[in-house]
């Protein structure tokens, strides 16, 4: 009896520490960004002329727009391709090919972002540069992000589709539905919540990604006029400037970290809710 | 190996004395049980007699399994389960602060509906609970293992493969192993929750036979849906019924009485197969 109590006590302590990490992170982000949040008006982050921290201009909007544009562009490419990949595995491919392709996608899901960034830097950027200088651009960022989130979308969509009961398909086939009729009418609606949750998680990943984008997007703070213009994302900005930032500048970087975290948290909360809703 | 070796006294079952005496070992007084505030068992008072087989019968959901779990305090493990009333085992309140639940459960063995061997070897399945209760000497553990496997008639079937996974046994064998595992701790009381219902008819027959041979040595409380089985092996029977969404004890008495001349019309209807 007492040994169980002892163990429960130890476990409680462990769990408390694990839970405290979250609070600690929040506390330190707030603590470090506090000087700016209290001294500077929040509007400065929207109304300042640009992002020139050494000239005390702290407009985060160009980087926020860069972050959102890169993520949305990546989603626009990765969702159709990822869905097609999942449909291929579940419905179109012969078994051995499906397994092979599934393995390929699983392998890609494990490739670190820095390798994607490296490949983008050495292969994609020079290619785009040939076509439309300077090469390091929103487009390169979008392409690299697409490669990164595509496996994620495929795997979640595959899991959701595989969880649709087999009888539904048999019934659909018995009703004489065409293949696309079956997929669009039965499979996709049945797997909808799972797929959506996967896409939202992929979006969160794209928003928070640092290294790959840092390496290929050019990192110029601006509102891009075309996809060939370079951009800087919030995450890349932190990685780029954190090392030497002092005073307000450092605090603003923590603010952008906070902003990024809230964005990503909101997305994963939506995904979590969807999933819960789905299971209920 | 000689079965009578060492301190272990249980002889071959066939030779054991069969004594079922109307002397209460377990006294259940005003037991009520609820899950998250919903009453599952309402005010049950019942005595379990020493050395006898008591069958708990009644339709599904009338609280028989809950009643069983309350006796060895397995209800502690169910979140949101509340128990009120008193249960005395050998005149000691099982909920009394000084009574240790591990000791209680050693004293009261339990066998579940589905065979539940641990994913370990056959030998380890029996050795693990022994070790946990302080019996660690290898020779003693081996002796007990052989003894209880003989008791359940499994020794001849498995003695040459004690180190294979218990999961490789057939369903009937697994259930007998579970009974052997419970017997290894030398319990006074055995609780059995439909021990035959998950088995095929032949395996079920073997296990039923085993249970009836255990009569007299152990006080057995068995939940069963098989009325014929209850009639064949039990000395006493307790009939439960659902009233107002909660299980209640309707009638308790000798088996013969319950099945042949029940005092309550519900019991009569149930044992005749017209209700339930």
């Amino acid at each position: 009896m007492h040994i169980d109590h002892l163990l429960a006590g130890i476990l409680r302590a462990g769990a408390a520490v694990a839970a405290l990490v979250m609070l600690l992170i929040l506390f330190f982000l707030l603590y470090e960004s506090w000087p700016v949040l209290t001294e500077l008006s929040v509007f400065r982050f929207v109304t300042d002329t640009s992002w020139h921290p050494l000239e005390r201009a702290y407009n985060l909007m160009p980087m926020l727009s860069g972050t959102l544009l890169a993520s949305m562009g990546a989603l626009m490419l990765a969702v159709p391709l990822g869905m097609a990949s999942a449909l291929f595995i579940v419905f179109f491919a012969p078994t051995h090919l499906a397994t092979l392709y599934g393995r390929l996608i699983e392998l890609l899901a494990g490739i670190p972002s820095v390798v994607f960034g490296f490949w983008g830097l050495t292969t994609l950027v020079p290619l785009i540069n040939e076509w439309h200088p300077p090469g390091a651009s929103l487009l390169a960022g979008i392409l690299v992000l697409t490669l990164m989130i595509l496996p994620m979308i495929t795997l979640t969509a595959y899991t959701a589709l595989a969880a649709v009961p087999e009888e539904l398909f048999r019934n659909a086939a018995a009703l004489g539905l065409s293949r696309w009729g079956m997929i669009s009418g039965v499979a996709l609606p049945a797997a909808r919540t799972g797929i959506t949750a996967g896409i939202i998680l992929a979006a969160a990943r794209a928003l928070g990604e640092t290294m790959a984008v840092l390496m290929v997007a050019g990192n110029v703070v601006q509102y891009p006029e075309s996809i060939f213009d370079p951009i800087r994302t919030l995450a890349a900005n932190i990685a780029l400037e954190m090392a030497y930032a002092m005073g307000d500048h450092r605090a603003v970087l923590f603010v952008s970290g906070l902003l990024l975290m809230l964005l990503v948290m909101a997305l994963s909360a939506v995904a979590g809710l969807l999933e819960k809703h789905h299971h209920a | 190996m000689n079965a009578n070796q060492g301190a272990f006294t249980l002889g071959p079952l066939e030779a054991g004395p069969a004594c079922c005496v109307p002397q209460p070992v377990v006294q259940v007084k005003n037991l009520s049980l609820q899950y998250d505030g919903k009453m599952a068992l309402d005010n049950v008072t019942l005595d379990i007699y020493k050395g006898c087989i008591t069958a708990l019968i009644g339709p599904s959901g009338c609280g028989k399994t809950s009643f069983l779990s309350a006796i060895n305090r397995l209800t502690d493990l169910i979140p949101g389960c509340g128990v009120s009333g008193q249960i005395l085992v050998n005149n000691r309140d099982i909920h009394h602060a000084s009574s240790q639940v591990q000791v209680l459960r050693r004293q009261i063995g339990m066998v579940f509906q589905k065979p539940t061997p641990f994913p370990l070897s056959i030998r380890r399945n029996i050795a693990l609970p022994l070790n946990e209760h302080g019996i660690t000497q290898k020779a003693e553990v081996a002796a007990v293992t052989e003894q209880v496997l003989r008791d359940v008639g499994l020794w001849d079937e498995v003695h040459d493969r004690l180190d294979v996974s218990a999961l490789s046994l057939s369903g009937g064998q697994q259930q007998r192993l579970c009974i052997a595992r419970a017997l290894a701790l030398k319990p006074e009381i055995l609780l059995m929750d439909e021990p035959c219902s998950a088995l095929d008819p032949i395996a079920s027959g073997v296990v039923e036979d085993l249970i009836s041979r255990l009569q007299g040595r152990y006080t057995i409380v068995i939940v069963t849906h098989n009325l014929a089985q209850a009639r064949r092996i039990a000395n006493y029977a307790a009939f439960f019924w659902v009233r107002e969404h909660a299980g209640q004890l309707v009638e308790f008495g000798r088996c013969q009485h319950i099945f042949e001349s029940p005092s309550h019309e519900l019991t009569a209807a149930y044992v005749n197969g017209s209700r339930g």
Partner: protein
Amino acid sequence: MPEMIWHHTLQKIRDCGVQGFVYLAVLLVSAVFVWMLADLVRGGFAHLSWEFMTESPRDAGRAGGIASILVSTVLILLVALVTAVPLAWATAVLLTEFVPVTSPLGKTVRFSLFVLAGVPSIVFGLFGNAFFSIYLGLGFSILSGGLTLACMLLPILTSTAEAGLRAVPETYRLSAAALGITRTAALIHLIFPAAAPALAAGLLIGIGRALAETAALLFTSGYVDRMPGSLFDSGRALALHIFDLSMNVPGGDMPAYASALVLVSLLLCINILAMKLAYSLQRRKILT
């Protein structure tokens, strides 16, 4: 009925179109990935050698190998695991075995881990820099990098362990309790062994994550590329080495390719191992 035939023809065309799109997409995705992997192998294989694995980098990584990088990577990983695994598994055991799913404690812990799982890695880097490097005074060291990674690994290790422990049949717990076995003993002798494949798979996933991480280490473990003498020294992780070589070292592409190849093969092995464990787990579930 000509309309009906027309309708069916349309359907067929549509089906073909969809099929065409799916095949095209798959072909494109496979082609790009094969292109990428081929690039890595082509670029890195020639540079790989025994010396590359056993020598320390010289001349900013252009010459020499990655031995010190590998040592730093392993050390950072170990610090992360030694810290995160006990915490994560303790939390998982508490959540599955000791508190009900709906209890306030369980809900709080689960919620905070859920939130933690959504935090971008660069934010972990910010936190690690502010807390471990500056507030605790660990500076740029393997210790602060490893501890930052540990925070990052907590949610993934906890959730995999929790799922693994929950998959252990309830009957084991009940029958162990019915035999008067303490929870602690049941945990050690029954539940942990039964959940071992899931725990191992989760551990491998965590290791994979940690090996791939760059952003969280940028401002915590630093990027000194020398052989670390102690945990208080700065150490450059393999992923960070690739980043530095490709961004900051003219002529660093070849060793960067080779390092990337090493990292990807390492992660590949870990993934295959994790997948094998997961599959064997599934197969066993079907068998029993």
